[in-house]
């Protein structure tokens, strides 16, 4: 540490220096719509699992009821969590990655993002397969735009998960 630095730092006690940000927000440049797509798959899967869960009948034992409630609670908790992950991921792409020139090129972007966030609220609040599928469809639309802005071609393929819905993937390498 130089003498000049020590002196200037001492001056800070009298009158703090203003800060010149070399700012950042760290635009690290690392974004990918895949997280949102994956979260939508999880929400779809949880809705499916909830639907497949056998409800305890009138003569179910307390243990069977307990097991039912335990599974249901876990599916719901996961659905809540992944709907929220989805919203966070979509907001980051929208607010941090996409630039005004992208919106000029893809004027539908704001509307898709708005619909995606609304679908995710529905996917979170309700046991609603359509809402969950809308989440994935909108994440796919966002992914298509995202990869176009990167100059990367995309392909729509059935996801290799139990949900097996059409998903937009980048054609890399």
């Amino acid at each position, binding site marked *: 540490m130089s003498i000049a630095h020590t002196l200037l730092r001492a001056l800070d006690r009298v009158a703090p220096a203003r800060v*010149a940000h*070399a700012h950042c927000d760290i635009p690290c440049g690392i974004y990918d719509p895949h997280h949102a797509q994956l979260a939508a798959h999880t929400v779809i899967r949880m809705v499916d699992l909830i639907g497949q869960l056998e409800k305890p009948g009138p003569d179910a034992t307390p243990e069977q009821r307990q097991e039912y409630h335990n599974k249901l609670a876990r599916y719901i908790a996961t659905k809540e969590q992944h709907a929220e992950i989805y919203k966070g991921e979509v907001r980051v792409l929208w607010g941090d990655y996409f630039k005004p020139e992208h919106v000029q090129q893809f004027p539908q972007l704001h509307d898709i993002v708005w619909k995606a966030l609304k679908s995710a609220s529905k996917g979170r609040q309700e046991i609603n397969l359509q809402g969950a599928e809308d989440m994935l469809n909108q994440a796919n639309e966002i992914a298509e735009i995202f990869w176009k802005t990167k100059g990367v071609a995309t392909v729509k393929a059935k996801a290799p998960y139990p949900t097996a819905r059409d998903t937009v993937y980048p054609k890399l390498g």
Partner: protein
Amino acid sequence: MFPLARFRVDDQSMEPALHAGDYVLVNRWAYRKVEPIPGDIVVLRNPEALGQFLVKRIASGTAGSYVVLGDNEAHSRDSRHFGPVPKDLVIGKVRYRAKA
């Protein structure tokens, strides 16, 4: 207006020329008679948040409008994002640097 202003550098976008924690002295009169030239390190108001200051390097400029870039491209938000900056947002030229 006193010509010298003190700023403390935050974050990394001007590495290796400036590091977080360095102090710089800025000549606010530097561009009264001459224009900024490519290579000058300047403190400017952030065009995206006018209450905030940025430190960047002039890359090019014409007629009162300047492209500013951080030296550390991967960690800099600059004219690549917010476009050229009008001269009246430029506070002054960095004249002296005290290393942290």
